[in-house]
């Protein structure tokens, strides 16, 4: 391994880390402002001067100065490491997501899709750990709801992703983008919808936010959390939005494909990812929360059959077209 190899690896790791620390904040700030305007409010206006652009930076500074409190009844070790378990998987996943053609990817992995799905599934463990370790009834209920939700979305999520892999004939994420073609928008539409909806449920975002339903169980598994640990859970949620939207972009919306030359490919990935993030925010404002049993019904009687149908259609079309 030469010096340039080491430098390149370092540059890629730093690049992924920078994306991981900026894009979630951008999405979070957009949520503050977009939600506010959709509800005829202004949202944050003070921090940083111009339309409260530095609100999340100020929040971060505040979180970093808060006391570290672990409830006396809690399972201390598990309680303390839960936020890290929730956060780090989303950082690792980012490395496999291609932003542009060629080598514009953190690391091209041959089994990229498989790795991404496996690592993303780890993040939920953080919430389950938090729910159990807090020794709080609200947290326990939140954790149980998270687990119930996991049963509902994970299968359609995986099946829809498998459909994209079948259509492309590869598990490599850059390979899937390279094989993409505009007619996938129609052909893979049910798969894309299932993937995105199931992903929203994984992130516990409205309308699937019953695990953290604030009007019922305070804040679910995160009830006892405060300060930096709470901030890490929040960061995990927004990093999750970025990862889900980027993955949907890569698998179903053609990633870096767009009308302009390939050099602008990274811009297309970014634009598509942010547009989907806006949809995530929009859905939060527009729809009321489902109940856990409604989610189960939606998943098992709607998403799973739809995903199976998509698999059949993908298989037939692929073989029929050679």
């Amino acid at each position, binding site marked *: 391994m030469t010096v340039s190899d080491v430098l390149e690896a370092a540059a890629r790791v730093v690049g992924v880390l920078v994306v991981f620390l900026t894009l979630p904040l951008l999405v979070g700030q957009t949520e503050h402002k977009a939600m506010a305007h959709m509800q005829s409010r202004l949202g944050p206006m003070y921090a940083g001067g111009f339309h409260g652009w530095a609100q999340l930076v100020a929040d971060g500074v505040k979180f970093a100065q808060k006391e*570290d409190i672990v409830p006396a009844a809690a399972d201390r070790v598990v309680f303390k490491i839960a936020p890290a378990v929730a956060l780090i998987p989303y950082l690792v996943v980012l*490395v496999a997501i291609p932003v542009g053609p060629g080598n514009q990817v953190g690391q091209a992995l041959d089994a990229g899709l498989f790795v991404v799905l496996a690592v993303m599934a780890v993040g939920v463990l953080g919430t389950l750990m938090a729910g159990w370790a807090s020794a709080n009834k609200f947290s326990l209920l939140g954790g149980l709801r998270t687990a119930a939700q996991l049963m509902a979305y994970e299968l359609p999520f995986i099946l829809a992703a498998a459909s994209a892999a079948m259509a492309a004939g590869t598990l490599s994420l850059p390979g899937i983008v390279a094989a993409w073609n505009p007619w996938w928008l129609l052909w893979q539409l049910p798969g894309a919808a299932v993937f995105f909806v199931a992903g929203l449920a994984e992130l516990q975002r409205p309308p699937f936010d019953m695990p953290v339903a604030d009007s019922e169980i305070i804040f679910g598994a995160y009830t006892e959390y405060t300060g930096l640990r709470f901030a890490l859970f929040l960061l995990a949620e927004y990093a999750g939005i970025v990862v889900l939207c980027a993955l949907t972009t890569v698998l179903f919306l053609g990633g870096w494909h767009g009308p302009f030359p390939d050099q602008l490919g990274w811009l297309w990935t970014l634009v598509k990812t942010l547009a989907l993030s806006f949809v995530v925010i929009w859905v939060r404002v527009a729809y009321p929360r489902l109940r856990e049993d409604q989610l189960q019904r939606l998943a098992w009687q709607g998403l799973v059959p739809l995903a199976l149908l998509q698999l059949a259609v993908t298989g037939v079309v692929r073989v029929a077209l050679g």
Partner: protein
Amino acid sequence: MDGFYGGYGLVGLLLLVGVLFVTVAFVANGLLRPTVPGGDKTVTYECGVDPVGEGWAQNHIRYYVFAYLYVVFAVDAIYLFPWATVFAAPGFGAATLVEMFVFIGFLAVGLLYAWKKGVLSWV
């Protein structure tokens, strides 16, 4: 870094960076935060009143049937991935497609059976 496993070096490195990021954040937090132990702040939160019993209460897990169903299906779904990469390759074609329909058919019949049995409703 080449080869099938070579690429995972960077993934491992990023995992380390993630752990490091969290560690640095908590070290900074340790330097910046006040530490005032004691008081009522470590009492379990139950809307402000004194907690009743312990937090690890007994609970009816209503979705255990979903859990069984999920495990069955998720294990099946794993087999789709290796198959997905080769099924349309030259020399496979129609035969693998029929196999897929048998596979999806099993899943679908299982789901329909569970549905018919009334398992897919929240009890």
